[in-house]
């Protein structure tokens, strides 16, 4: 049987405010447990919440960036449940009147088409603390540093039909919130967390199937795997004539397994009611216009500009405009290096590979855009070969030296571009390889000839101690070998 997959997402986005949503404590990540939790965060008796204006501003900016209606009257509800890292015994969140109403985001797909994903709403709420289950001798530790960190929870319509679409949406959202500067986007620290709602229905059917929710996925890769896993699980059940139980599931990415967390019957009755400690917040035109004036260039506009200004192709422009920090890095590179295609290749190639290998973010890169730009300039003007450039990159990365030209000099990486010298090297090498020369000249197929040309490059580079300009060598070779 053929199935349609229906996917909706709920995304928790931590807002990059300096202080918490209802208290003056710092939101910085990584401090000693409970050093960023004051009397309000600890829910000490008699303490009261005071809303953080910046969290509202960020939420409104998100709404404007997703073409959404802004809720003019924003209310908070209490969501009641007991958990040790939930200090008040309720989470302050929004239900009836969220700050961001219906909106939408357009995503680009690999086949070159794009798709509109509708956002049902996005609401403001406070994060919980963390329970620490290790190192406490059979007990649990509670760290309330995160308690009260502002979140927006973005809830989409079930508009996605493949894991690819869901991941494309998630990446687009990541790109949006980092570009807006309202979230640091650091998924390894939980700054964005995804819940995936999945259901299957017979192909073409109008009726939605029973859905499950897989919670707390914190990387794009796990999200993709979790969707594939859950689709397969549901398909197996349905094709065996079984029924899907509405439930919340947890996915273990390291083992590619999932298990049920709780069924609908076991779900809490959260007893939502309006929080009497917080008055409804009126969002007026002036506040919205102020937020609008703060909107930076958004990814779609940036992509268009990258194509226009730098002549990048659609793919390169898409990748480089997607992440705010990467975009900024690219533009810094371009301020110091003129060849956009070279810069794009180096950023997506060597640079990204090294960041990934060392699990570093762009911000943590030991190489600046200015340095990479200088290197790109030296590649473009034939001062170094790409092999030499890799050595320069290495020296920059390790911090051995921070000046591109100084590294080229010190390591003797400057290319020989003197045609006279290169010609005599070519003559010498060809003289030593008569069989290969004959074979080349006897070959008809241009593709094969081109490949065979590579066979001469090794010895040539060796002869020039790696300093011969490969481009010039190539030209000379073609001329000397003749047609």
């Amino acid at each position, binding site marked *: 049987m053929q199935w349609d997959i229906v996917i909706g997402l709920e995304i928790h986005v931590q807002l990059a405010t300096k202080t918490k949503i209802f208290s003056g404590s710092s939101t910085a990540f990584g401090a000693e447990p409970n050093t960023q939790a004051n*009397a309000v965060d*600890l*829910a*000490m*008796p*008699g*303490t*009261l*919440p*005071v*809303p953080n204006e910046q969290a509202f501003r960020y939420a409104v900016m998100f709404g404007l960036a997703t073409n959404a209606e802004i809720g003019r009257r924003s209310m908070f509800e*209490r969501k*009641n449940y*007991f958990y*040790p890292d939930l*200090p*008040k*015994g*309720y989470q302050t969140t929004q239900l009836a009147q969220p700050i961001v109403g219906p909106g939408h985001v357009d995503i680009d797909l690999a086949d070159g088409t794009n798709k509109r994903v509708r956002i049902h709403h996005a609401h403001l709420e406070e994060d919980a603390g963390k329970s620490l289950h290790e190192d406490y001798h059979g007990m*649990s530790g*509670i760290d309330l540093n995160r308690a009260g960190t502002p979140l927006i929870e973005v809830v989409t319509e079930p508009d996605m039909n493949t894991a690819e679409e869901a991941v494309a949406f998630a990446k687009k959202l990541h790109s949006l919130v980092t570009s807006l500067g309202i979230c640091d986007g650091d998924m390894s620290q939980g700054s964005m967390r995804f819940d995936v709602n999945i259901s299957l229905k017979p192909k073409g059917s109008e009726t939605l199937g029973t859905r499950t929710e897989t919670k707390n996925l914190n990387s794009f890769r796990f999200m993709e795997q979790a969707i594939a896993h859950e689709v397969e699980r549901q398909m197996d059940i349905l094709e065996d004539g079984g029924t899907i139980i509405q439930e919340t599931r947890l996915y273990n990415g390291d083992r590619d397994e999932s298990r049920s967390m709780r069924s609908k019957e076991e779900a809490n*009755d959260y*007893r*939502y*009611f309006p929080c*009497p*400690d*917080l*008055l409804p917040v009126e969002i007026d035109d002036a506040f919205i216009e102020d937020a609008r004036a703060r909107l930076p260039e958004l990814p779609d506009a940036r992509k268009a500009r990258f194509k226009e200004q730098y002549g990048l192709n659609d793919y390169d422009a898409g990748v480089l405009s997607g992440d705010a920090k990467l975009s900024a890095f690219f533009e810094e590179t371009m301020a110091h290096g003129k060849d956009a295609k070279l810069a794009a290749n180096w950023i997506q190639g060597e640079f990204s590979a090294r960041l990934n290998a060392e699990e570093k973010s762009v911000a943590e890169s030991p190489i600046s855009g200015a340095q990479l730009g200088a290197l790109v300039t030296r590649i473009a003007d034939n001062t170094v070969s790409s092999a030499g450039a890799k050595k320069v990159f290495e020296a920059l990365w390790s911090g051995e030296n921070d000046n591109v030209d100084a590294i080229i000099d010190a390591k003797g990486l400057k290319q020989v571009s003197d045609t006279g010298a290169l010609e005599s090297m070519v003559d010498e090498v060809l003289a030593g390889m008569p069989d290969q020369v004959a074979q080349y000249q006897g070959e008809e197929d241009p593709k094969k000839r081109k490949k065979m040309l590579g066979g001469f490059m090794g010895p040539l580079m060796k002869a020039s101690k790696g300093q011969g300009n490969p481009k010039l060598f190539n030209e000379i070779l073609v001329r000397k070998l003749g047609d």
Partner: protein
Amino acid sequence: MHNKSVAELSKELESGKISSLELTQQFLDRLKREDGKYNSFITISDEQALAEAESADEMRAAGKATVWTGVPFAHKDIFCTNGVRTSCGSKMLENFVPPYDATVTEKFKAAGAVCLGKTNMDEFAMGSSNESSFFGAVTNPWGLSNGEKRVPGGSSGGSAAAVAARLVPAATGTDTGGSIRQPAALCGITGLKPTYGRVSRYGMIAFASSLDQGGPMARSAEDAALMMNVMAGFDPKDSTCIDRDVPDYTATLNEPLKGLKIGLPKEYFSEQLSPAMEEQVRNAVREYEKLGATVKEVSLPNAKLAIAAYYVIAPAEASANLSRFDGVRYGYRCADPKDLMDMYTRTRAEGFGNEVKRRILVGSYALSAGYFDAYYLKAQKVRRLIQQDFINAFKEVDVLMSPVTPSPAFIQGEKTTDPVSMYLEDVFTIAINLAGIPAMSVPAGFVDGLPVGLQIIGDYFSEARLLNAAHQFQQVTDWHQREPQ
């Protein structure tokens, strides 16, 4: 000294006849000697009081004294006091010492007032007789001479009894459904519940957040005005606190009452009120007529729904407000919990008293899926109707007058087994909290040797007018000066 008012004690200190240290010591000695009869204090904080008295004397020597500098008083044990146990009348917080002050506490400290300790109260302010306190019932100073142990009212019963017994000249209270006015009436003192949002709730342990309001309890309207001058005002730490100028509440105490339009809500003079009580209240209203006021009957048609609406809204809010008492971070935790659920359930089963548990259950039920619309939403609609009744009434009259309670102080234990009859104690006070308007209880006579209170209800932010009306009444009557034997 113990019979003097705040205003009089302030003059004594100013004249230099006595130092704050001496005055504080005298009050502490008397408090320790006498309170065995009433159990009106949970904690007497001698050490802190004497230290505050010393600083008060220094403040005065430096020429920085306010009216309150060096004057002793007490806080209801619901206001957090940095370094002094704040129990809220509960086993749950029996050993809780807050590392912060409530805003009200801070303000009295800044004025140089000397806090002698923390007064007894119904557990988490839930009760109308002060019998639900983990620290034992409070006995009303009135009726003791006949060998009767009567309730002081609640939940601010400790403050009311302490002021009536002259243990302190004044004390703070809080009022969610009548918890300042009802005990003030039963103990023959003066109490004011301000407009919701007039006094900061920060550091005042929450019962029902949309109804709770702190206010003064003293023997006279003048002293209540002096307390309001300290307590009232905007607080950036409380989002429901209103940013509005605070008048000098003593400045208008002597305005003449000629032309004051008084409304008598007919629903508050119903069969629930005993004829003897009604006579006292009507006598008091006649005094106002003599002072030049005019009187007419008005109607609050939805007043009869107030108790029902209140007992949905207040427990609903309380059910969430009290969730933080879970044994995880502070307060009581059961012994040897075997797992998390066991810790939660036994901590709360052992730490909360019966009335608190009853209200948590009622509140949780009212908020449950399937019942929310029928209970909580309906109660909120009723609340708006009640509010509208008062708004309409204040188009016709300046203030409303009524009894505070249906009957005088009852004997301890009389109503403890019948929660509904206990809830009806607040039948004349509860609607005021639902509407968020201010109201006072003023001593207005006696029935069977027990004090009767007159309730004066005003429009939003009319505290100055209420205090003025009460003060003028106290210039021509001496009910507020009667002392229990």
